[in-house]
């Protein structure tokens, strides 16, 4: 018990609950505010000529990624802390698979339909 502070973390049985540093009401409220701003921006951008028309899809995708980031950080509490390391690695792998499935399908089918003989 007295041989330095590292023993403090060794002595707990796995499964014993302890106080954890958790998020606050404030972080959820900040997240909600940012998410609402991103949502309204998406709807406004798609319905007005605020953005140059061919740039609208890019703008919408950027806003969607920004909002997903807000959700991950403020609602799901993915941070840089040691407890999040494994979750972030798993998320990175999930994002890779999602990216491959969606862009791969779109790319292959677009290529296929451009090589179709005209009907």
């Amino acid at each position, binding site marked *: *018990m*007295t041989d330095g502070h*590292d023993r*403090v*973390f*060794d*002595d*707990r049985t*796995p*499964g*014993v*609950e*302890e*106080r*954890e*540093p*958790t*998020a*606050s*009401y404030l972080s*959820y409220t900040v*997240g*909600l505010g940012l*998410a*609402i701003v991103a*949502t309204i921006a*998406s*709807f406004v*951008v*798609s*319905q007005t000529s605020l953005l140059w*028309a061919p740039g*609208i899809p890019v703008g*919408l*995708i950027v*806003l*969607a990624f920004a*909002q*997903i980031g807000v*959700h*991950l950080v403020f*609602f*799901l509490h993915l941070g840089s*802390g*040691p*407890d999040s*390391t*494994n*979750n972030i690695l*798993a*998320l990175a*792998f*999930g994002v890779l*698979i*999602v990216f491959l*499935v*969606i862009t791969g*399908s*779109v790319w292959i*089918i677009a290529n296929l339909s451009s090589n179709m003989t005209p009907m």
Partner: protein
Amino acid sequence: MAFTATINKAPTAIPTELARGRGGGGPAPKRTVVAYGFWIFILGDMVMFSALFAAFAVLRSNTAGGPTGAELFDLRSVFIETMCLLLSSYTCGLGALSAERRKPSRFLLFGVATFVLGSAFLVIEATEFARMVEMGAGPSRSAFLSAFFTLVGMHGVHVTGGLIALIYLAAQAIAMGLQPAVLRRLLCWSLFWHALDIVWVGVFTLVYLMGDFR
């Protein structure tokens, strides 16, 4: 005496090399392990949704002479739907936080708010589906509509399942109290609900907003 003092010390500011989950400092607490396992399930669910998103992205222009998204979608109701789901995600987070801080009445209040907002989302979505089927734009009309109903319907099925699980968890919290096992289930449920909101961000961007201005 020294023993209890050490045990009750809150683990604030753990040095990185001692933090659990990286091999040092002993095994991670059960809460972290359970949340990690559930996180893997959520990512698997995301991969399933990505297949449906890919199918929709590929089939969106194959309307077979039928109505397009721009003719069918009512963005006003989509916006209200989106806000309902976003607010329910917020109240869900606050509810999970209240449960963790052992405030049962506040937890139930936020739980009811989450349930009401989630149900409002489902009602708006079901109304929209019924309106489209009535117009002759059901899932069998074109490949675009098949993909639309599969993707948005699958999200709706998840929301329905989440609401049923919420009733179950609230009943557990009332019957068993906010004990550690119940708190872990609530943590997993809130992860699930937030993940559904993330999927919805993809749905309203790809399906509704990108479908409308084209």
